[in-house]
């Protein structure tokens, strides 16, 4: 897997650190069922096959946080953007 960093160009995976799913939305205060909402945010995952957007950190390069769209079934990188 190689990731094309918008700042540094195409680099090997060892320069990057995976952080998390970029789509998870933090619950707002004052929800009707806070325990359920926080359980869903902190612990539960859709974890499906196919493309998903993720945060990656380019620690071995420009130190930027990137949003990488990647297919978890094939490891294909579909897009890389700066959030």
């Amino acid at each position, binding site marked *: *897997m190689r990731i094309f960093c918008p700042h540094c160009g195409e680099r*090997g*995976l*060892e320069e990057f*650190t*995976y952080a998390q*799913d970029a789509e998870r939305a933090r619950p707002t205060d004052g929800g009707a069922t806070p*325990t*359920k909402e926080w*359980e*869903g945010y*902190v*612990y*539960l*995952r*859709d*974890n*499906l*096959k196919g493309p*998903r957007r*993720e945060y990656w950190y380019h620690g071995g390069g420009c130190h930027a946080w990137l949003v990488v769209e*990647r297919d*978890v*079934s*094939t*490891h294909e990188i579909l897009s890389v953007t700066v959030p």
Partner: protein
Amino acid sequence: MCITLFNYQENLLPAMRYSFLSVFTQALRGHTGWKPAWRKAEPAPSYDVVIIGGGGGGLATAYYLAKNHPEVGRIAVVEKGWLGGGNIGRNTTIIRSNYLLPGNEPFYEFSMKLWEGLERELNYNAMVSQRGIYNLYHSDAQRDAFARRGNAMLLHGADAQLLDKAQLRREVPYLNYDNARFPVQGALVQRRAGTARHDAVAWGYARGADLRGVDLIENCEVTRIFQENGKVTGVETTRGTIRAGKVAMAVAGSSSLLAAKAGLRLPIESHALQAFVTEGLKPLIDTVITFGAGHFYISQSDKGGLVFGGDIDGYNSYAQRGNLPVVEDVCEGGMALMPMLGRTRLLRSWGGIMDMSMDGSPIIDKTPVDNLFINAGWCYGGFKATPASGFCFAHLVARGEPHPVAAAYRLGRFAEGRLIDEKGVGAQPNLH
């Protein structure tokens, strides 16, 4: 190995038993008289219990359900591929019960005891070898943590022994004791731990379940889980509809995908773990060794290959392969520990998909859907748990309440804050 001459179990016809006598007789006949170890079953329209997943967990569950709880009725195992074709067929074969936390240690020690009697129980040679495991420590703090873990193991009836450097050096002389960065100071050793032949475990449970009347149905993928009024009623499969009184899921690696068919979201992410084997060598490592300064574990198979592994790749994946940075990291760990490994040639590496749970511990529980049960989240430690996982899941499915040693593995523990986090890293599955 188990050689039994006259101890015929009930339900097992003498002709089906493996024994010294049967091997000897077959040898005289040129091994032409062996029968298949289990039937190829066709799906019936309905069962009392349908177990989804024909891997170690599902087959062990079927065996213990049929043996310990015959009152449940007719049982089937449906498997999308072939029996034992998933993670039970591609792991590093280590069995051990060296855990710290009270939610874990009694369960894994129960599993260890089942391993010790497994071959006699199944009349099948699973090549269980109690060759011991050495967890190396490299600092004073790590020694203290290992002493605490060893004491926890002793309190739960397991065996543990803390070795200092001189004692360890006598037993395992070939480590790099001069590593300036990560000096080997000693090890926590569990002498009853060891390895088992992973495929044979699946095959032994399959044969045992089949002999007790369980239908083992291969090439049968579940495509839908039917529910009525919040209660499971059956499954749609690629080989037709099967009605079921109870449905038990044991599909680690694909748990989230299957649970989604029942409308559930799980505290699980799928990650790739790689493992490695070298070309066959003469006997070199007669035990299991883990490097405490990195993540590296190694043993030698009976065919002579050095079998080793390390961390998961660290990002979500359903691709059954990993990437090169982890290969490099694992090999660096091996070289730091045993420089002699640099002379060996890697024969194969492979990847499998792990159910990484949010606290690093498994789930054996009911689900919000009545009569739908789940056995999942084994991270990359499921193999050693196979016997107890099946035993406790069968108990749960039959009686509707958890087995005492698996009582902490609840699906609801995350919302309640009752995590079983051996490593203490929180809800970061890629770090467990």
